[in-house]
Structure formats: structure tokens, C-alpha cells
């Protein structure tokens, strides 16, 4: 394992396609309670090659201050490949995300990306299950748009603390089956979204999830009894505190069966069965 610990530059990794650029905020719209949709104008080439699950590291401070120092990683909620714009879903729970949510139309952002790998849909996949927890919904929405456009059948399972935290159904393509769960039962299934996932395991060709790490563990526990030798495969996006975002600092590693892997370069998307929990 140990000699395995140097991150190779993977295709889809930040090696080739990522870049530094200035994005311009074009709109801010409240959503899901205290969250904010921040739409950013970016070079068209960036938008065109973008795939769901990849993320951007954004400097979340004015240039004249050094605090907070590090960029913050944000994945993409929606992309407009023609106009060249990205929509980020920001939950303002800390300094960087709070700063993002306070932007005004016209503000410029110092952006690095796209970074990391992406969720991969296999060509043979007909039925796709997406599992989203809280703000983790962002890349799932982008994936739902892409899959629905390809005619893939999508079941979108979303969990939140309460009704306010849920994604409005109107945000998803009409063809998508949208099922929700809330911890307090204020809407949909009363309990964890991972319980809902059970009913879709046999139907699904692939499962993709994005949310906090505890959600992945509970998903694993909920569906593994039903899965047959690793089918359907499950892809999850791992959240880690990040510094460089390009595989240089080894600060964001995920321990996998094939050794230490970086969430920023080898990930953030990993095979559920590969990760050592």
C-alpha cells in the first residue's frame, strides 16, 4: 500500500483541464431555507467541458485581507454551457460560505478549477438513483439534468432536517422521480433518506450519492444487505478540508483499499466499496 501513496495524475484529475480565472457574480437567489444559489459567469470553455461532481476552489475574502486564507471548494449545482455560467449552491454556515452568500451582483471571484474527478455514468445505465443529503444536493442536481437529457430514468432521493431544507421539486427535470425524507417528518418519509434507497436497489443500474459522511455509512448499511456482489455500483463524493486542491499537499486524503487517495485529485468521487470507513 505505502508505495501506492503517491497520487498519480488521473484523467479527469486537475492535471490538464483546470485553470485559474475570474468569475463574475450574475445573480443570487435564496433556496432551501438559509442556502443561496450563486450564479457565476465563467469562460465558456470551463462550462463546456464540466462534468457533475467536479468542483472549484474559490478565494472567499477580499484581496486586501489574508484571513480566511485558504480557498473553499464548491461543487456545481447547474451549468449553462452556452452562456458560460455556473450555479453554486452555498450553505452559509461558516466564514467562507458566509462570504460567498454575501456577494453582490457584479462582484468578481478568484476561481480555480474545475478540480477532481466526476461521477461516471456507464453507457449501459438505464435506471439511475441519486441520493442527496442537505447541501450535498448540488452535484446530484447537475447529474439529474445530464442523465434526464440522455433519457436515463432517474430516481432522485433527497433528505433534509425539515421541509425548509428540501430542494423544490421545480428545480428538477419533470421526468425525474423525486422522493423526499425529513428527519422531523415535516414532509415526505419520516426518517433518513438512506432508508428510502432500499426500495430502489434492485431497480437501479447505478447509485450516486452526495452528502455528509455519516449518510454514506448509513446508506451502506441500508443497501448492502440487498446488493449482490457489488451490484449496483455506488459512487459517493467525499468531503475533506482542502488546501491546494490539486494533489500537492496530501491534506485531503481518503483511505481506500488501494491506499491513501486524495479527495481533490483522485476524488472527490469514490466507489463506496473502495473506501475504508
Amino acid at each position: 500500500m505505502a508505495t501506492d501513496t503517491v497520487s498519480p495524475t488521473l484523467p479527469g484529475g486537475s492535471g490538464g483541464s483546470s485553470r485559474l480565472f475570474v468569475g463574475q457574480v450574475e445573480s443570487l437567489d435564496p433556496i432551501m431555507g438559509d442556502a443561496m444559489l450563486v450564479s457565476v459567469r465563467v469562460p465558456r470553455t470551463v462550462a463546456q467541458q464540466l462534468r457533475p461532481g467536479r468542483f472549484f476552489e474559490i478565494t472567499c475574502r477580499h484581496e486586501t485581507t489574508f484571513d480566511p486564507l485558504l480557498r473553499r471548494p464548491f461543487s456545481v449545482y447547474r451549468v449553462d454551457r452556452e452562456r458560460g455560467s455556473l450555479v453554486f449552491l452555498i450553505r452559509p454556515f461558516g466564514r467562507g460560505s458566509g462570504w460567498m452568500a454575501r456577494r453582490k451582483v457584479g462582484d468578481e471571484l478568484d476561481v480555480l478549477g474545475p478540480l477532481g474527478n466526476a461521477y461516471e455514468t456507464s453507457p449501459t445505465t438505464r435506471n439511475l438513483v441519486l441520493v442527496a443529503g442537505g447541501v450535498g444536493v448540488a452535484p446530484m442536481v447537475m447529474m439529474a439534468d445530464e442523465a434526464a437529457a440522455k433519457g436515463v430514468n432517474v430516481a432522485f432521493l433527497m433528505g433534509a432536517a425539515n421541509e425548509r431544507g428540501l430542494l423544490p421539486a421545480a428545480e428538477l427535470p419533470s421526468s425525474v422521480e423525486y422522493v423526499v425524507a425529513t428527519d422531523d417528518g415535516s414532509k415526505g418519509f419520516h426518517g433518513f433518506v438512506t432508508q428510502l434507497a432500499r426500495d430502489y436497489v434492485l431497480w437501479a443500474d447505478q447509485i450516486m450519492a452526495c452528502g455528509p459522511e455519516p449518510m454514506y455509512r448509513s446508506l451502506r448499511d441500508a443497501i448492502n444487505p440487498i446488493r449482490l456482489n457489488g451490484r449496483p455500483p455506488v459512487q459517493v463524493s467525499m468531503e475533506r478540508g482542502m488546501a491546494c486542491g490539486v494533489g500537492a499537499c496530501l491534506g485531503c486524503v481518503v483511505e481506500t483499499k488501494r491506499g491513501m487517495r486524495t479527495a481533490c485529485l483522485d476524488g472527490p468521487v469514490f466507489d463506496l466499496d473502495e473506501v475504508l470507513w
Partner: protein
Amino acid sequence: MSADLAVPDLSVDLAPNNPRELRLANPVIAASGCFGYGQEYAGLIEVSRLGAFVSKGITPEPRSGNAMPRIVETPAGMLNAIGLQNPGIRGFVKKYPRLWEKQRLTAIVNISAETVDDFAMMAAILDEQPGIAGIEVNVSCPNINRGGYCFGWDPEMSADVTRAVRAATTLPVIVKLSPGAEDVVLVAQAVEAAGADAISLINTLVGMAIDVRRRRPVLGNGTGGLSGPAVKPVALRMVYQVAGAVQVPVIGLGGILGVDDLLEFVMAGASAVQVGTGIFVDPQLPIRLIDGLAAWMIKEGVGSLGEIVGAAQPAAVRAARGRAAEGSG
């Protein structure tokens, strides 16, 4: 910088006493642990434009590093406890030296070990490799939990390591000092006497952050190394002290995020600088520094870097450093 003006001489030899030289096109070096193996940032900046880069710290055996979390942000800085995750010297030489030679990069290998013999062993292996411009000896591994007592805190121990590495290779040897030493000047003078071609400082300061919600240290390793703008004042003071007390070139680092920071280190007595955390913040930083330094020199009518190395030192020291710096281009 405007094309019609003569481009000033940014080149520097960081090993003037070594026939093999350590000549860089400019004094901007990417710091160890912050630039991987020279590949990770290739898509973002022209790595070949850097004066040089220093590899992640290499150890005798492969290491998978510390438990997560490994990094946490602090005011104007960050703590890291990576734990020297690396493929080990043998895994390393299989992959990178030839690659670097092919890529024509000026690469310095940072080595770290827990015994003098292991330092010498790694130096001997690197001595035979292509594509390596020099060795940086990391005598301070603040976040490795082995006994905790640090080579770099003790002048004699640091000198022993330096002597052993010096004997094992003819490559330029940079010794990277620990800010944890009680008197960094004594360590600097000891490693200079023991044959170091150059001295770099500072490595990270040992720090900590506590997760108030969980009521335990944030980092998996408990403590970590503090870096970034927060440490710049301490780094500058140590560079100023060391540059005033040794003749070999000094490489300054610690919190450099802009051209003014670079100039502060150079005026304190550094013949070159390294940038670490600053690269995470702005991957273009090394290029900005090179171009910005050249532009500043033209504006100020400074023809070669040597003219301002140690400019903030007392006159006596300045004269001496000046000679040393000129001697090194």
C-alpha cells in the same frame, strides 16, 4: 515589465562553495510539501519558469502519513500534520529523477530521517541519480511523533546530520532549519561549519487547534506545523539573525504571499526565497513574484539581486553579505 528596459539579472548560485553549483535563473523556489513532485501544478503554471522547486519530504521507508484531519485553517495561516506521506527513497527514485531530467526542471529533493545514517543513506542514493540539482536536509519534523526531540533544535545533532550528508554526496546541500531551536543562529553556524552549501529557514512552528464542539484536538495528529502569513514576522526575524551570522547563502521562507514579502526577506539577508502555503492560495504566486521582482528592480534601478540582499542589515553585515551575494551572481 516594459519591454524597452533591460531585464535585470535575477540569477543566483546558492552553492558558491560547491563546484557543482546550484545556479537558479531566479530566486523563487517552491517549498517542500507544497508543490508535490513538480507535476501537480503543471497544468496551472509553467513549472520550468521557477528558479527551482523542492520535493515533498522523502523518508528512508514509505510512509502513509497521519490520520485525518491533516490540515486546519488558523488566523492568516494554516496548521498541517501530513505526516510525511511519501513512497520512500526507493519508490521515489524509481519514478521522479528521470522524469525531472526529461522535463528539464531544477529539482531539489527534501529528505527527512530519524537517524544520521539514514540521512547519509538517502544522500548516497540521490548522489547517483539524474535530474537532481540539490538536496534539502529537513532536520526538523515537528509533526512526526518519534520521541519528539528534534535534530534541528540542537547545533551538534544538526551538524552531525550535515556532515554525514556532506560526506555522502557532492550534490549541493541545503540545510533547512527549525524555528523551534532555542537559538537558531547557533544551529546555522554549526551546519555552515559542517559543510552546508546553503541554509533555508524557516520550517513550520509547532501549533495546535482544538475542536470546541468535540472537545478534542482538531488534527488527527494532535499538533501540526503552522505556516502562512501568520508566521512571517518570526521567519523574517530568524532570517535576519542567521544572515547576519553566516557567509553561505540563506534561503528565506515563511508566509510569503507577495512581492513586498519577498523583498522583506531579501533585504533581511536572503539570497533566495521559497513559497509554500502561498501557492495553495494563489498557484500563480511564484510567477507573480518573479515578474514582480524584475519589475521592482527596473523601477528602483537595481541591476542585480546581490545589490539588495541584506539591505536592511547593519552596514558591517551588509558589506559581508553583499560580497557573498555578488559572489553568487
